[in-house]
């Protein structure tokens, strides 16, 4: 069974995304409400998550900064990270393209196809 870590400061979105992935794909979900907790959760999770779904706009530490910190940690650097963001403007998209994340998914997402979208971005054949 796949294990996904969701990092988002909005509790409602964490809840909906977790429910959607559990109900449609049967994945195991771990959540964190900010970047720092996200890094801790990723490190404490045994086994490490198969992928991280991360918001961009978060207080204190935003998604891109959290991603960069994870890349410096050899234990976490290999986990694929997908950004799940409401920043859909062209300028924002160009900024994300240079980060080195595995992909970008946009809010509002469709709860019935979110798991499919993740599989597609990561090349999973589940």
């Amino acid at each position: 069974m796949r294990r996904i870590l969701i990092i988002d400061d909005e509790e409602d979105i964490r809840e909906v995304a977790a429910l959607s992935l559990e109900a449609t794909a049967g994945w195991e979900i771990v959540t964190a409400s900010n970047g720092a907790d996200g890094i801790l959760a990723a490190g404490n999770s045994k086994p490490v998550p198969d992928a991280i779904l991360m918001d961009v706009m978060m207080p204190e530490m935003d998604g891109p900064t959290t991603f960069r910190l994870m890349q410096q940690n050899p234990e976490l650097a290999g986990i694929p990270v997908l950004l799940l963001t409401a920043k859909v403007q062209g300028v924002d998209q160009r900024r994300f393209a240079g980060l080195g994340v595995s992909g970008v998914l946009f809010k509002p997402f469709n709860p019935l196809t979110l798991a499919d979208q993740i599989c597609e971005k990561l090349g999973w054949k589940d």
Partner: protein
Amino acid sequence: MSFSLTLFSGLFLTCICLLGVLALRLGRKVRQQERDLGGLSQTLERSREHAEEQKHRLAERSDLDRAKDEFISTVSHELRTPLTSIRGALGLLSSGLLGDVDARAHNLLRIASTNTERLIRLINDILDLERMESGRSPVNLRRCSLVDLSREAVEMMSALAEAAQIRMELNSYAAHDSIYFDADPDRILQVLTNLLSNAIKFSPEGSTVSLEIDANSDALSLKVIDRGRGIPVDKLESIFDRFQQVESTDSSKKGGTGLGLAICRSIIQQHGGLIWARPNQSWGQSDHNGAQTNPGTTFCVQFCRSARIGDTAFPREIVPLAERGEGLILVCDDDPGIRTVVREQLRRHGYDVIEVSSGEEVIALANEQTMRNAPSPAISAILLDQYLPGLNGWETLRQLKSSVTTAAIPVVILSVSSPSERPLLVGEAQGWVQKPYNESLLLAELGRVLKSNAGTVKDPQHNLRTSRLTV
């Protein structure tokens, strides 16, 4: 001795005087030059200041643009975030994945879901339009195939068409090598899917929506033809404005945002093209059972290969006539007052009239007529103003006459100058009316040109089209 002394002192005095005068003049000249230099440095100073000011203003403007971008990006983000939770929650509940929902509750969930989707579309459309109209959405030009883009659009819309029980067909009349053009493929696809989804939404069950494409060496055209209820003539223009729908209930019944056509127009204008709507040619025709069929609407898009990206073209007014006229006259004048007068005079005498305000539009329309399978009636003659912004009358005439496909359409120049001033051009234009003109002169000249052209037209296709003229 005393004489020579006097002479010497006289000479000496004269020399002193001359030197004095020279010195004075020199001094004046130096002062003049000093003044000039001073002026020059002042000018330099001023232009430096001017440059600084310009730089400052530009910086201020880009600051303003950045602030605006930032604001829009934030608003968009703040609207999307709560919508994400709503859409997610409703989607999961109505899917039944979390347990059965009774029929009445399911209906309510469906209503909430549909309207959430509508709100998301509306936000997307508003942001899209804002970006485009503020010029902050650059077109990424690439070599595209009109056929491939059309095929893709039809495919993308096939699920919607199937659900509405509408058949879709794609017809290409373009020569293989003429379908390539420079455009932003995502944007063109957006226009095509928008027009197709409109056509599907407003078509009766079981009918067909056609996408027709055509191209020649000068222009490309695409048409989306539906068999819907049709658009009233007085709304053919305004439907391209924001939130203008034919019926006020359309946005809730059909799920549109009221911005789709405004977005289409923005995109097409960014590509230097034209978009307009017109009733189908078979207006009021009856089917074989004698019942009146739906008139339907044709949305036409035209790209002129010579148009520069970013040129904006203004939609023109189309004046269809109930009665069969003696011919379709394309009237081109940048003065709307003159256009109105000419239109009224021509209509009174049974002509059909299309009005345009620029040479570019004349070329685009004339080209459309020459394409095979043009559903619109052929232009019988063009009434062309001499002084037009952009492509002027001379250049328009030259382009019309140099293209094999449009050379056969007779042109009457409407000009403030007399034909004797440009004798060379009389050979190219078939007629000439000097402004200010009187009605009978205009009609006489137009009649003469049409009559003489009818006898000399060599292009059989052109003749054929003229004979099946209906509007």
